[in-house]
């Protein structure tokens, strides 16, 4: 069974050969780690490293220390680790303060992505660099949470349109920034494609509570955490999201008995992510030797991918050029029809204009030309 990376539309979101060596040097044990470190370090210059690889250096440093490997660059690598530890501690402190404020107002909070993975799996905030933190709240608490955040100094990034419930149903979250430039993404659903009513319910149902200092918050259960991690590896991102491999590797390593594999495949079907899940699991198994049951790999390999998902995956996995308004329209149509998949085609067509406006954050059609011009200019 091969992950057959190069010919796949998701290929650009997988690590290249050099990044793969770095991941193995950072994650593997014994000879495999040492051999990958030797080959990788002999072929790259840390001073000119790509951003996606740079984010893996604290994890690499920790593994080099564990294996007693010395290198002239160890001081620099350790410094990079200290740097990210400090940055993350400041963000985590902000995150915990915000969680305390929200919970004080009886608003339940789930931490997503790095902020959760650090406490669940990395166990050190130095090892998993974050540029912002992501929290999720129940949908019926959006207005309360937004009001509270503004009151304590968090400002929305861009126009705040989420006070309208119709808009909430078309978006997954809102970004905020505080006076020191710290960023927080406030979610009400964990996936930006799954914004329909109660799309997030499954994630809350299986979530788990953890405590950090005196702060209590929820995190995704292991199966949903693995799903969320692998799916994020499939989204287009300006910086290739290769660290999903490290995140997934650590989840698999530490939760060998708590992954509900069949439920994982069901999540892929429910949220139309079978393709990304398929490529991700095959990659982890084939290229990293991750312990994934063969019957699950076989089941997901044989799963039928819908035409809609095939087309969508091509649009999602790479940046849409600014002049391709047609592709943007197609992408928004898929998002819309996914939300209203029980409605007739005519009904979907009738409600598409309002969905489109909310998706591109305009209130009136007269703002459309300005949106197109800004898009062309890359603003």
């Amino acid at each position, binding site marked *: 069974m091969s992950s057959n990376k190069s010919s796949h539309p998701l290929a650009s979101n997988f690590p290249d050969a050099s990044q793969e060596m770095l991941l193995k040097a950072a994650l593997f044990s014994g000879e495999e780690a040492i051999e990958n470190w030797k080959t990788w370090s002999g072929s790259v210059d*840390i*001073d000119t*490293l790509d951003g996606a690889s*740079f984010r893996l250096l604290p994890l690499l440093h920790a593994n080099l*220390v564990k294996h007693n490997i010395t290198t*002239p660059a160890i*001081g*620099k*690598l*350790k*410094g*990079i*680790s*200290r*740097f990210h*530890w*400090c*940055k993350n*501690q*400041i963000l985590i*402190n902000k995150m915990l303060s915000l969680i305390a404020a929200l919970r004080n107002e009886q608003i339940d909070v789930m931490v997503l992505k790095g902020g959760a993975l650090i406490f669940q799996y990395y166990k*050190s*905030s*130095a090892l998993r660099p974050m540029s912002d933190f992501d929290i999720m709240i129940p949908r019926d608490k959006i207005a309360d949470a937004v009001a509270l955040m503004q009151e304590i100094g968090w400002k929305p990034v861009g126009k705040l349109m989420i006070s309208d419930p119709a808009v909430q149903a078309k978006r997954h979250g809102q970004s905020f920034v505080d006076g*020191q430039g710290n960023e927080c993404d406030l979610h009400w659903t964990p996936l930006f494609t799954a914004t329909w009513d109660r799309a997030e319910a499954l994630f809350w149902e299986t979530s788990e509570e953890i405590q950090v*200092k005196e702060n209590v918050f929820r995190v995704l259960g292991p199966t949903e955490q693995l799903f969320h991690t692998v799916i994020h590896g499939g989204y287009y991102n300006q910086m290739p999201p290769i660290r999903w491999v490290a995140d997934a590797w650590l989840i698999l390593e530490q939760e060998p008995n708590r992954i509900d594999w069949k439920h994982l495949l069901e999540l892929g079907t429910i949220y139309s992510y079978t393709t990304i899940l398929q490529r991700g699991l095959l990659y982890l198994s084939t290229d990293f030797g991750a312990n994934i049951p063969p019957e699950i790999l076989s089941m997901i390999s044989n799963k039928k991918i819908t035409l809609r998902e095939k087309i969508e995956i091509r649009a999602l996995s790479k940046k849409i050029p600014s002049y391709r308004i047609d592709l943007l329209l197609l992408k928004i149509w898929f998002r819309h029809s996914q939300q209203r998949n029980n409605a007739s085609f005519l009904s979907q067509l009738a409600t598409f204009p309002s969905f489109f406006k909310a998706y591109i954050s305009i209130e009136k059609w007269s703002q459309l030309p300005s949106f197109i011009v800004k898009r062309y200019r890359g603003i």
Partner: protein
Amino acid sequence: MALTQEKFKMILSTLNITENDVVYEEYEDEMIFLHLKNGYYYTLTNEGADCVIALLRSASVDEAFTWLKEKYETDETSLHSYCKDLVTELIQEELVHERKDKQTDDGILDGFSGVPKKLQSYHLDKYEDIQDILKFDPVHEVNEDGWPSVIE
């Protein structure tokens, strides 16, 4: 007048990290602290880090000293003096405070089976503005010791 060992013990206590305001991380040869309230960043060299860890994780000063004496070639009086100076400095910086009871939340001490080393002087370096030093590029603006040691 030199203090007796008993008096040393009276002024040296096991420690707790200043709750909520201070976070720390151990590296193989140092300990780093970040004071979140005032934005100060500190590095403490190996031997000093071991003393702090011992006092954080032990139920008593005697237990901490037993562990430290297995690791370092030193006598009780020198060790008391060394730890007292360090703890005084850390308390002044509001990084730690004395612990009155035997409870500790900072984990347990790892066993040690190597050859005891000489107890070298510790260095506690302080950087006064974390937001400022975070502006340094940790790859291109630092010397071989790595961030936050910048190229002069």
